[in-house]
Protein backbone atom coordinates (compact mmCIF):
# COMPACT_ATOMS: atom_id res chain seq x y z
CA UNK A 1 0.00 0.00 0.00
CA UNK A 2 1.12 3.54 -0.74
CA UNK A 3 2.86 5.36 2.14
CA UNK A 4 1.44 8.52 3.74
CA UNK A 5 1.82 11.39 1.32
CA UNK A 6 3.65 13.83 3.59
CA UNK A 7 3.85 17.04 1.59
CA UNK A 8 4.83 20.69 1.62
CA UNK A 9 5.23 23.71 -0.62
CA UNK A 10 8.06 26.22 -1.13
CA UNK A 11 7.30 29.60 -2.62
CA UNK A 12 9.73 32.18 -3.96
CA UNK A 13 8.15 35.61 -3.93
CA UNK A 14 8.89 38.32 -6.46
CA UNK A 15 10.42 41.34 -4.71
CA UNK A 16 10.71 45.03 -5.45
CA UNK A 17 11.84 48.07 -3.51
CA UNK A 18 9.69 51.15 -4.06
CA UNK A 19 11.08 54.57 -3.31
CA UNK A 20 14.78 53.65 -2.97
CA UNK A 21 17.61 51.95 -4.80
CA UNK A 22 18.33 48.39 -3.73
CA UNK A 23 19.35 45.04 -5.10
CA UNK A 24 16.98 42.09 -4.70
CA UNK A 25 19.38 40.03 -2.56
CA UNK A 26 19.81 42.86 -0.04
CA UNK A 27 16.08 43.57 -0.11
CA UNK A 28 15.24 39.90 0.49
CA UNK A 29 17.66 39.79 3.44
CA UNK A 30 16.26 43.02 4.88
CA UNK A 31 12.71 41.70 4.54
CA UNK A 32 13.41 38.43 6.33
CA UNK A 33 15.61 40.03 8.99
CA UNK A 34 12.87 42.54 9.74
CA UNK A 35 10.53 39.65 10.56
CA UNK A 36 13.00 37.36 12.30
CA UNK A 37 14.59 40.03 14.48
CA UNK A 38 11.19 41.01 15.76
CA UNK A 39 9.95 37.51 16.49
CA UNK A 40 12.64 35.09 17.52
CA UNK A 41 16.28 34.42 18.08
CA UNK A 42 17.83 33.55 14.74
CA UNK A 43 18.51 29.81 14.54
CA UNK A 44 20.89 28.93 11.73
CA UNK A 45 19.97 26.45 9.07
CA UNK A 46 22.25 23.42 9.07
CA UNK A 47 23.50 22.52 5.59
CA UNK A 48 25.36 19.40 6.69
CA UNK A 49 23.12 16.99 4.82
CA UNK A 50 22.02 19.05 1.82
CA UNK A 51 22.73 17.35 -1.50
CA UNK A 52 20.83 19.25 -4.22
CA UNK A 53 23.11 17.77 -6.90
CA UNK A 54 22.01 14.19 -6.37
CA UNK A 55 19.93 12.89 -9.26
CA UNK A 56 17.06 10.45 -8.74
CA UNK A 57 18.18 8.57 -11.81
CA UNK A 58 21.25 7.43 -9.90
CA UNK A 59 24.13 9.79 -10.61
CA UNK A 60 25.35 12.93 -8.88
CA UNK A 61 27.02 16.24 -9.64
CA UNK A 62 29.74 16.75 -7.01
CA UNK A 63 30.17 20.44 -7.74
CA UNK A 64 26.68 21.61 -6.94
CA UNK A 65 26.02 23.04 -3.51
CA UNK A 66 23.13 24.85 -1.97
CA UNK A 67 23.95 28.41 -3.09
CA UNK A 68 23.46 29.79 0.42
CA UNK A 69 26.60 28.05 1.65
CA UNK A 70 28.76 30.28 -0.47
CA UNK A 71 26.82 33.47 0.02
CA UNK A 72 25.97 33.29 3.74
CA UNK A 73 22.48 34.58 3.21
CA UNK A 74 19.70 34.88 5.76
CA UNK A 75 18.26 31.54 6.63
CA UNK A 76 15.89 31.04 9.53
CA UNK A 77 13.87 28.21 10.98
CA UNK A 78 10.54 29.33 12.43
CA UNK A 79 8.60 28.00 15.41
CA UNK A 80 5.89 26.69 13.08
CA UNK A 81 8.52 24.35 11.61
CA UNK A 82 8.90 26.36 8.36
CA UNK A 83 12.09 27.68 6.76
CA UNK A 84 12.28 31.35 5.74
CA UNK A 85 15.32 32.29 3.68
CA UNK A 86 16.90 34.05 0.72
CA UNK A 87 17.09 31.82 -2.32
CA UNK A 88 19.01 33.37 -5.20
CA UNK A 89 17.43 36.81 -5.32
CA UNK A 90 14.06 36.06 -3.73
CA UNK A 91 12.58 35.62 -0.29
CA UNK A 92 11.31 32.07 0.01
CA UNK A 93 9.14 30.31 2.54
CA UNK A 94 9.05 26.50 2.78
CA UNK A 95 6.07 25.25 4.74
CA UNK A 96 6.69 22.61 7.39
CA UNK A 97 5.98 19.00 6.46
CA UNK A 98 2.22 18.42 6.37
CA UNK A 99 0.09 15.29 6.34
CA UNK A 100 -2.71 16.52 4.05
CA UNK A 101 -3.34 19.03 1.27
CA UNK A 102 -5.57 21.02 3.63
CA UNK A 103 -2.67 21.38 6.07
CA UNK A 104 -0.48 22.59 3.21
CA UNK A 105 -3.06 25.27 2.43
CA UNK A 106 -3.10 26.34 6.09
CA UNK A 107 0.69 26.71 6.20
CA UNK A 108 0.84 28.36 2.77
CA UNK A 109 -1.66 30.91 4.09
CA UNK A 110 0.53 31.33 7.19
CA UNK A 111 3.51 31.90 4.87
CA UNK A 112 1.57 34.70 3.14
CA UNK A 113 0.86 36.29 6.52
CA UNK A 114 4.56 35.96 7.47
CA UNK A 115 5.56 37.73 4.25
CA UNK A 116 2.95 40.46 4.84
CA UNK A 117 4.13 40.94 8.42
CA UNK A 118 7.71 41.14 7.10
CA UNK A 119 6.72 43.91 4.66
CA UNK A 120 5.13 45.89 7.49
CA UNK A 121 8.14 45.38 9.79
CA UNK A 122 10.60 46.32 7.03
CA UNK A 123 8.70 49.51 6.21
CA UNK A 124 8.88 50.53 9.87
CA UNK A 125 12.61 49.78 10.05
CA UNK A 126 13.48 51.52 6.77
CA UNK A 127 11.63 54.58 8.03
CA UNK A 128 12.43 56.67 4.92
CA UNK A 129 9.21 56.28 2.98
CA UNK A 130 10.61 53.42 0.94
CA UNK A 131 8.88 50.08 0.92
CA UNK A 132 9.71 46.44 0.11
CA UNK A 133 6.87 44.90 -1.89
CA UNK A 134 6.43 41.21 -2.68
CA UNK A 135 4.42 39.33 -5.29
CA UNK A 136 3.20 35.74 -5.06
CA UNK A 137 3.63 34.98 -8.75
CA UNK A 138 6.18 33.19 -10.94
CA UNK A 139 7.32 35.55 -13.65
CA UNK A 140 8.21 39.18 -14.26
CA UNK A 141 6.69 39.12 -17.74
CA UNK A 142 10.15 39.61 -19.25
CA UNK A 143 11.40 36.05 -19.38
CA UNK A 144 12.54 35.67 -15.77
CA UNK A 145 10.82 33.00 -13.72
CA UNK A 146 10.98 31.87 -10.08
CA UNK A 147 9.32 28.88 -8.59
CA UNK A 148 6.64 27.49 -6.37
CA UNK A 149 7.77 23.95 -5.66
CA UNK A 150 5.80 21.10 -4.13
CA UNK A 151 7.29 18.15 -2.28
CA UNK A 152 5.78 14.72 -1.73
CA UNK A 153 7.05 11.71 0.21
CA UNK A 154 7.29 8.68 -2.06
CA UNK A 155 8.24 5.08 -1.36
CA UNK A 156 11.84 4.45 -2.46
CA UNK A 157 10.74 1.06 -3.79
CA UNK A 158 8.65 2.68 -6.52
CA UNK A 159 10.68 2.70 -9.77
CA UNK A 160 11.54 6.31 -10.61
CA UNK A 161 10.94 5.73 -14.33
CA UNK A 162 7.33 4.76 -13.53
CA UNK A 163 6.85 7.97 -11.54
CA UNK A 164 8.20 10.05 -14.43
CA UNK A 165 6.05 8.50 -17.15
CA UNK A 166 2.82 8.24 -15.13
CA UNK A 167 2.85 11.62 -13.32
CA UNK A 168 3.60 13.59 -16.50
CA UNK A 169 0.06 13.56 -17.98
CA UNK A 170 -1.22 14.98 -14.67
CA UNK A 171 1.49 17.67 -14.55
CA UNK A 172 0.70 18.71 -18.11
CA UNK A 173 -3.10 18.88 -17.68
CA UNK A 174 -3.72 19.87 -14.02
CA UNK A 175 -3.07 23.52 -14.97
CA UNK A 176 -6.71 23.75 -16.06
CA UNK A 177 -7.63 24.13 -12.38
CA UNK A 178 -4.35 25.27 -10.80
CA UNK A 179 -2.91 27.60 -13.44
CA UNK A 180 -2.57 31.15 -12.10
CA UNK A 181 -3.10 32.84 -15.49
CA UNK A 182 -0.79 35.17 -17.38
CA UNK A 183 -1.23 38.11 -19.73
CA UNK A 184 0.84 37.42 -22.86
CA UNK A 185 3.65 34.97 -23.50
CA UNK A 186 7.36 35.05 -22.73
CA UNK A 187 8.33 32.62 -25.47
CA UNK A 188 10.63 34.27 -27.99
CA UNK A 189 8.74 35.27 -31.10
CA UNK A 190 5.24 34.96 -29.59
CA UNK A 191 3.29 38.21 -29.88
CA UNK A 192 0.63 39.42 -27.47
CA UNK A 193 -1.92 39.22 -30.27
CA UNK A 194 -1.06 35.55 -30.85
CA UNK A 195 -1.27 34.74 -27.11
CA UNK A 196 -3.11 37.58 -25.33
CA UNK A 197 -3.73 35.42 -22.25
CA UNK A 198 -2.68 31.96 -21.12
CA UNK A 199 -3.61 29.56 -18.33
CA UNK A 200 -0.21 29.07 -16.67
CA UNK A 201 2.49 31.43 -15.42
CA UNK A 202 5.13 28.77 -15.87
CA UNK A 203 4.40 26.77 -19.03
CA UNK A 204 6.56 29.10 -21.17
CA UNK A 205 9.63 28.06 -19.17
CA UNK A 206 9.56 24.28 -19.52
CA UNK A 207 11.89 22.81 -22.12
CA UNK A 208 12.57 19.22 -21.05
CA UNK A 209 10.52 16.22 -19.98
CA UNK A 210 12.83 15.17 -17.15
CA UNK A 211 16.06 16.48 -15.59
CA UNK A 212 17.90 17.89 -12.61
CA UNK A 213 17.88 21.58 -13.54
CA UNK A 214 15.57 24.11 -11.90
CA UNK A 215 16.89 27.40 -13.27
CA UNK A 216 17.41 26.74 -16.97
CA UNK A 217 16.16 24.11 -19.38
CA UNK A 218 13.51 23.41 -16.76
CA UNK A 219 12.09 19.87 -16.81
CA UNK A 220 8.43 18.88 -16.25
CA UNK A 221 9.66 16.20 -13.84
CA UNK A 222 12.58 17.30 -11.68
CA UNK A 223 15.00 14.58 -10.63
CA UNK A 224 16.55 16.17 -7.54
CA UNK A 225 17.05 13.25 -5.17
CA UNK A 226 17.46 14.80 -1.76
CA UNK A 227 14.97 13.03 0.50
CA UNK A 228 15.66 14.93 3.77
CA UNK A 229 14.73 11.68 5.52
CA UNK A 230 15.77 8.02 5.49
CA UNK A 231 17.08 7.59 1.92
CA UNK A 232 16.78 3.81 2.06
CA UNK A 233 13.02 4.02 2.56
CA UNK A 234 11.90 7.25 0.94
CA UNK A 235 12.22 9.72 -1.86
CA UNK A 236 11.02 13.30 -1.88
CA UNK A 237 9.51 14.11 -5.26
CA UNK A 238 10.48 17.74 -5.88
CA UNK A 239 7.88 19.25 -8.21
CA UNK A 240 8.80 22.47 -10.00
CA UNK A 241 6.14 22.61 -12.68
CA UNK A 242 3.37 24.40 -10.74
CA UNK A 243 2.26 28.02 -10.44
CA UNK A 244 1.99 29.84 -7.11
CA UNK A 245 -1.71 30.16 -6.39
CA UNK A 246 -3.62 32.99 -4.75
CA UNK A 247 -6.72 30.78 -4.57
CA UNK A 248 -6.69 28.46 -1.56
CA UNK A 249 -8.86 25.93 -3.38
CA UNK A 250 -6.41 25.90 -6.30
CA UNK A 251 -3.49 25.12 -3.95
CA UNK A 252 -5.65 22.48 -2.27
CA UNK A 253 -6.53 20.80 -5.57
CA UNK A 254 -2.99 21.10 -6.93
CA UNK A 255 -1.42 19.38 -3.91
CA UNK A 256 -4.31 17.03 -3.17
CA UNK A 257 -4.80 15.63 -6.66
CA UNK A 258 -1.04 15.19 -7.09
CA UNK A 259 -0.77 13.32 -3.77
CA UNK A 260 -3.59 11.00 -4.89
CA UNK A 261 -1.96 10.38 -8.29
CA UNK A 262 1.38 9.60 -6.61
CA UNK A 263 -0.32 7.11 -4.27
CA UNK A 264 -1.89 5.46 -7.33
CA UNK A 265 1.53 5.26 -9.02
CA UNK A 266 3.04 3.64 -5.91
CA UNK A 267 0.29 1.02 -5.96
CA UNK A 268 0.67 0.68 -9.73
CA UNK A 269 -2.96 1.58 -10.31
CA UNK A 270 -2.82 4.27 -12.97
CA UNK A 271 -1.39 2.50 -16.01
CA UNK A 272 0.36 3.98 -19.01
CA UNK A 273 -2.59 4.59 -21.39
CA UNK A 274 -2.40 8.35 -20.83
CA UNK A 275 1.28 8.70 -21.81
CA UNK A 276 1.71 11.80 -23.97
CA UNK A 277 3.53 11.88 -27.30
CA UNK A 278 5.22 15.22 -26.58
CA UNK A 279 4.70 16.57 -23.04
CA UNK A 280 6.71 19.78 -23.53
CA UNK A 281 4.70 21.03 -26.49
CA UNK A 282 1.49 19.73 -24.84
CA UNK A 283 1.99 21.78 -21.65
CA UNK A 284 2.43 24.93 -23.75
CA UNK A 285 -0.44 24.22 -26.14
CA UNK A 286 -2.81 23.65 -23.22
CA UNK A 287 -1.62 26.77 -21.45
CA UNK A 288 -2.02 28.92 -24.55
CA UNK A 289 -5.64 27.94 -25.14
CA UNK A 290 -8.01 29.33 -22.50
CA UNK A 291 -10.94 28.01 -24.59
CA UNK A 292 -9.81 24.56 -23.37
CA UNK A 293 -10.56 22.96 -26.73
CA UNK A 294 -6.99 22.20 -27.84
CA UNK A 295 -6.25 18.51 -28.07
CA UNK A 296 -2.83 16.97 -27.44
CA UNK A 297 -1.51 13.71 -28.86
CA UNK A 298 -1.10 10.61 -26.75
CA UNK A 299 1.61 8.10 -27.55
CA UNK A 300 -0.99 5.69 -28.94
CA UNK A 301 -2.09 8.32 -31.45
CA UNK A 302 -5.40 9.38 -29.89
CA UNK A 303 -5.94 13.03 -29.05
CA UNK A 304 -7.47 14.43 -25.88
CA UNK A 305 -8.20 17.85 -24.40
CA UNK A 306 -6.68 18.70 -21.01
CA UNK A 307 -10.13 18.34 -19.43
CA UNK A 308 -10.56 14.88 -20.97
CA UNK A 309 -7.14 13.89 -19.62
CA UNK A 310 -8.21 15.11 -16.18
CA UNK A 311 -11.52 13.20 -16.37
CA UNK A 312 -9.51 10.08 -17.19
CA UNK A 313 -7.20 10.62 -14.21
CA UNK A 314 -10.17 11.31 -11.91
CA UNK A 315 -11.95 8.18 -13.09
CA UNK A 316 -8.85 6.14 -12.16
CA UNK A 317 -8.71 7.92 -8.79
CA UNK A 318 -12.34 6.94 -8.09
CA UNK A 319 -11.52 3.35 -8.93
CA UNK A 320 -8.45 3.53 -6.67
CA UNK A 321 -10.57 4.90 -3.84
CA UNK A 322 -12.84 1.86 -4.10
CA UNK A 323 -10.05 -0.72 -4.36
CA UNK A 324 -7.44 0.71 -1.97
CA UNK A 325 -9.07 3.49 0.05
CA UNK A 326 -7.46 6.90 0.45
CA UNK A 327 -6.07 6.75 3.99
CA UNK A 328 -2.58 7.72 2.73
CA UNK A 329 -3.82 11.18 1.71
CA UNK A 330 -6.16 11.66 4.69
CA UNK A 331 -9.54 9.96 4.38
CA UNK A 332 -11.87 12.91 5.03
CA UNK A 333 -9.75 15.34 3.05
CA UNK A 334 -9.57 12.87 0.15
CA UNK A 335 -13.36 12.51 -0.06
CA UNK A 336 -13.70 16.29 -0.23
CA UNK A 337 -10.85 16.51 -2.77
CA UNK A 338 -12.45 14.03 -5.14
CA UNK A 339 -15.77 15.87 -4.96
CA UNK A 340 -14.15 19.23 -5.69
CA UNK A 341 -12.00 17.72 -8.45
CA UNK A 342 -15.18 16.58 -10.18
CA UNK A 343 -16.95 19.91 -9.58
CA UNK A 344 -14.09 21.95 -11.00
CA UNK A 345 -13.83 19.85 -14.17
CA UNK A 346 -17.59 19.94 -14.73
CA UNK A 347 -17.60 23.70 -14.12
CA UNK A 348 -14.73 24.38 -16.51
CA UNK A 349 -16.52 22.33 -19.13
CA UNK A 350 -19.99 23.85 -18.84
CA UNK A 351 -19.80 27.34 -17.33
CA UNK A 352 -16.37 28.43 -16.17
CA UNK A 353 -17.79 31.43 -14.30
CA UNK A 354 -19.20 28.87 -11.87
CA UNK A 355 -15.64 28.06 -10.75
CA UNK A 356 -14.18 31.58 -10.91
CA UNK A 357 -14.13 31.54 -7.09
CA UNK A 358 -11.73 28.54 -7.17
CA UNK A 359 -9.59 28.90 -10.28
CA UNK A 360 -7.04 31.73 -10.43
CA UNK A 361 -6.67 31.91 -14.20
CA UNK A 362 -10.45 32.16 -14.66
CA UNK A 363 -10.81 34.84 -11.99
CA UNK A 364 -7.92 36.82 -13.47
CA UNK A 365 -9.15 36.49 -17.03
CA UNK A 366 -12.54 37.95 -16.06
CA UNK A 367 -10.74 41.03 -14.71
CA UNK A 368 -8.42 41.38 -17.69
CA UNK A 369 -11.15 40.91 -20.31
CA UNK A 370 -13.66 43.06 -18.42
CA UNK A 371 -11.14 45.88 -18.03
CA UNK A 372 -10.07 45.67 -21.68
CA UNK A 373 -13.73 45.87 -22.77
CA UNK A 374 -14.54 48.78 -20.53
CA UNK A 375 -11.54 50.86 -21.59
CA UNK A 376 -11.23 49.57 -25.17
CA UNK A 377 -7.69 48.32 -24.64
CA UNK A 378 -5.71 46.14 -27.02
CA UNK A 379 -3.84 42.97 -26.01
CA UNK A 380 -0.39 43.97 -24.79
CA UNK A 381 -1.59 47.18 -23.09
CA UNK A 382 0.48 47.89 -19.97
CA UNK A 383 -2.69 48.27 -17.89
CA UNK A 384 -3.62 44.65 -18.56
CA UNK A 385 -0.15 43.54 -17.53
CA UNK A 386 -0.48 45.69 -14.40
CA UNK A 387 -3.72 43.85 -13.53
CA UNK A 388 -1.87 40.55 -13.95
CA UNK A 389 0.91 41.71 -11.62
CA UNK A 390 -1.37 43.26 -9.04
CA UNK A 391 -3.49 40.12 -8.84
CA UNK A 392 -0.48 38.69 -6.93
CA UNK A 393 0.46 41.85 -5.01
CA UNK A 394 1.02 41.08 -1.31
CA UNK A 395 0.05 44.61 -0.23
CA UNK A 396 -3.48 44.37 1.14
CA UNK A 397 -4.46 47.73 -0.38
CA UNK A 398 -3.23 46.73 -3.86
CA UNK A 399 -3.91 43.01 -4.13
CA UNK A 400 -6.59 42.15 -6.70
CA UNK A 401 -6.90 38.43 -5.85
CA UNK A 402 -8.41 39.30 -2.47
CA UNK A 403 -11.09 41.33 -4.24
CA UNK A 404 -12.43 38.77 -6.71
CA UNK A 405 -14.41 36.64 -4.25
CA UNK A 406 -12.15 33.57 -4.00
CA UNK A 407 -13.47 30.90 -1.63
CA UNK A 408 -11.38 30.44 1.50
CA UNK A 409 -10.77 27.13 3.28
CA UNK A 410 -8.76 28.51 6.19
CA UNK A 411 -10.05 31.06 8.69
CA UNK A 412 -7.90 34.12 9.37
CA UNK A 413 -7.49 32.91 12.96
CA UNK A 414 -6.15 29.53 11.82
CA UNK A 415 -3.74 31.17 9.35
CA UNK A 416 -2.41 33.52 12.02
CA UNK A 417 -2.01 30.69 14.53
CA UNK A 418 -0.06 28.67 11.96
CA UNK A 419 2.51 31.49 11.73
CA UNK A 420 3.97 30.31 15.03
CA UNK A 421 2.42 26.90 15.85
CA UNK A 422 3.66 23.80 13.99
CA UNK A 423 1.46 21.09 12.47
CA UNK A 424 0.80 18.31 14.99
CA UNK A 425 0.92 15.31 12.68
CA UNK A 426 4.51 15.31 11.34
CA UNK A 427 8.07 15.70 12.70
CA UNK A 428 7.65 19.47 12.17
CA UNK A 429 5.88 19.38 15.54
CA UNK A 430 9.11 18.35 17.28
CA UNK A 431 11.13 20.99 15.41
CA UNK A 432 8.67 23.77 16.11
CA UNK A 433 8.12 22.92 19.78
CA UNK A 434 11.87 22.70 20.47
CA UNK A 435 12.33 26.12 18.89
CA UNK A 436 9.47 27.55 20.94
CA UNK A 437 10.72 26.13 24.22
CA UNK A 438 14.52 26.21 24.04
CA UNK A 439 15.73 28.60 21.31
CA UNK A 440 18.86 29.34 23.36
CA UNK A 441 19.97 25.72 23.35
CA UNK A 442 19.47 25.03 19.65
CA UNK A 443 22.47 25.94 17.51
CA UNK A 444 21.23 24.62 14.17
CA UNK A 445 18.28 22.90 12.60
CA UNK A 446 17.30 21.46 9.25
CA UNK A 447 14.60 19.17 7.89
CA UNK A 448 16.00 15.92 9.28
CA UNK A 449 17.93 16.90 12.40
CA UNK A 450 18.42 19.45 15.17
CA UNK A 451 21.65 20.33 16.97
CA UNK A 452 21.54 21.23 20.68
CA UNK A 453 24.12 22.87 22.90
CA UNK A 454 23.21 22.23 26.51
CA UNK A 455 26.54 23.17 28.09
CA UNK A 456 28.86 20.55 29.59
CA UNK A 457 28.61 17.94 26.81
CA UNK A 458 29.68 18.19 23.15
CA UNK A 459 27.02 19.43 20.72
CA UNK A 460 24.21 16.90 20.36
CA UNK A 461 22.56 16.17 17.02
CA UNK A 462 19.06 14.69 17.22
CA UNK A 463 18.27 12.88 13.96
CA UNK A 464 14.71 13.11 12.61
CA UNK A 465 14.84 10.71 9.70
CA UNK A 466 11.20 9.58 10.00
CA UNK A 467 8.76 12.28 8.83
CA UNK A 468 5.94 10.74 10.87
CA UNK A 469 7.81 10.61 14.17
CA UNK A 470 8.03 13.59 16.48
CA UNK A 471 4.29 14.21 16.22
CA UNK A 472 2.13 15.67 19.01
CA UNK A 473 0.71 12.23 19.64
CA UNK A 474 4.16 10.64 20.02
CA UNK A 475 6.15 13.36 21.80
CA UNK A 476 3.56 15.87 23.06
CA UNK A 477 3.84 14.48 26.61
CA UNK A 478 7.64 14.92 26.56
CA UNK A 479 7.23 18.65 26.12
CA UNK A 480 4.82 18.73 29.09
CA UNK A 481 7.20 16.74 31.28
CA UNK A 482 10.57 18.33 30.44
CA UNK A 483 11.49 21.79 31.66
CA UNK A 484 14.96 21.98 30.07
CA UNK A 485 16.50 20.91 26.77
CA UNK A 486 18.97 18.76 28.73
CA UNK A 487 16.04 16.88 30.27
CA UNK A 488 14.52 16.38 26.83
CA UNK A 489 17.78 14.95 25.46
CA UNK A 490 18.10 12.63 28.46
CA UNK A 491 14.55 11.39 27.91
CA UNK A 492 15.24 10.82 24.20
CA UNK A 493 18.32 8.77 25.13
CA UNK A 494 16.38 6.61 27.58
Amino acid at each position, binding site marked *: MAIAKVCGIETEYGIQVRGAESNPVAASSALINAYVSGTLRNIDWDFGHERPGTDARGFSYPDSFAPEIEMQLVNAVLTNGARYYVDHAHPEVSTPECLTALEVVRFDRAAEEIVRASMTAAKRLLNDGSEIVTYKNNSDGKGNSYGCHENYLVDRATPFARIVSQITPHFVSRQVFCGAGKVGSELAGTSSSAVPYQISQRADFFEEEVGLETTLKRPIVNTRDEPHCDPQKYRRLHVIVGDANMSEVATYLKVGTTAIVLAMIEDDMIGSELTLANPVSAIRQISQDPSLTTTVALRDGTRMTAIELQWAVLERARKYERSHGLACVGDDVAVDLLARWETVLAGLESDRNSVAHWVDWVAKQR*LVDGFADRHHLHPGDAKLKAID*LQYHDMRADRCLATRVGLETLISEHDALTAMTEPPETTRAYFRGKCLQRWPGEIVAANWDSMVFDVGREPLRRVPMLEPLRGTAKLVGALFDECTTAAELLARLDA
Partner: protein
Amino acid sequence: MAEHTQKQKQAPSRTEETIEDLPVGAQQGEKLKAELDDLLDEIDEVLETNAEDFVKSYVQKGGE
Protein backbone atom coordinates in the same frame (compact mmCIF):
# COMPACT_ATOMS: atom_id res chain seq x y z
CA MET B 1 -28.41 46.34 -9.61
CA ALA B 2 -31.65 45.89 -7.66
CA GLU B 3 -33.63 46.87 -10.75
CA HIS B 4 -31.99 44.14 -12.83
CA THR B 5 -32.84 41.52 -10.28
CA GLN B 6 -36.47 42.65 -10.08
CA LYS B 7 -37.04 42.45 -13.82
CA GLN B 8 -35.52 39.03 -14.14
CA LYS B 9 -37.41 37.56 -11.24
CA GLN B 10 -40.78 38.24 -12.86
CA ALA B 11 -39.94 36.46 -16.06
CA PRO B 12 -40.39 32.76 -15.16
CA SER B 13 -43.96 33.09 -13.80
CA ARG B 14 -45.41 34.23 -17.08
CA THR B 15 -43.55 32.01 -19.53
CA GLU B 16 -43.79 28.45 -20.73
CA GLU B 17 -41.87 25.75 -18.97
CA THR B 18 -39.56 25.23 -21.93
CA ILE B 19 -38.01 28.66 -21.68
CA GLU B 20 -38.06 28.91 -17.91
CA ASP B 21 -34.38 28.12 -17.74
CA LEU B 22 -33.37 31.02 -19.91
CA PRO B 23 -34.39 33.89 -17.64
CA VAL B 24 -32.78 32.15 -14.64
CA GLY B 25 -29.56 31.82 -16.61
CA ALA B 26 -29.85 35.40 -17.74
CA GLN B 27 -30.47 36.47 -14.17
CA GLN B 28 -27.31 34.74 -13.06
CA GLY B 29 -25.48 36.37 -15.97
CA GLU B 30 -26.80 39.82 -14.99
CA LYS B 31 -25.73 39.25 -11.41
CA LEU B 32 -22.23 38.27 -12.50
CA LYS B 33 -22.02 41.24 -14.81
CA ALA B 34 -23.09 43.59 -12.03
CA GLU B 35 -20.50 42.07 -9.71
CA LEU B 36 -17.84 42.42 -12.37
CA ASP B 37 -18.83 46.05 -12.94
CA ASP B 38 -18.39 46.77 -9.23
CA LEU B 39 -15.05 45.00 -9.28
CA LEU B 40 -13.88 46.96 -12.32
CA ASP B 41 -14.88 50.20 -10.56
CA GLU B 42 -12.67 49.14 -7.69
CA ILE B 43 -9.79 48.26 -10.00
CA ASP B 44 -9.97 51.72 -11.53
CA GLU B 45 -9.18 52.99 -8.03
CA VAL B 46 -6.63 50.39 -6.92
CA LEU B 47 -4.60 49.96 -10.11
CA GLU B 48 -1.19 51.65 -10.04
CA THR B 49 -1.61 55.07 -11.60
CA ASN B 50 1.32 54.77 -13.98
CA ALA B 51 0.79 51.22 -15.23
CA GLU B 52 3.52 51.49 -17.82
CA ASP B 53 6.26 52.40 -15.30
CA PHE B 54 4.91 49.90 -12.81
CA VAL B 55 5.10 47.04 -15.30
CA LYS B 56 8.42 48.15 -16.79
CA SER B 57 10.16 48.46 -13.42
CA TYR B 58 9.09 45.01 -12.28
CA VAL B 59 12.23 43.09 -13.23
CA GLN B 60 13.23 39.95 -11.34
CA LYS B 61 16.23 37.73 -11.33
CA GLY B 62 15.43 34.13 -12.17
CA GLY B 63 15.14 31.96 -9.11
CA GLU B 64 14.90 28.35 -7.94
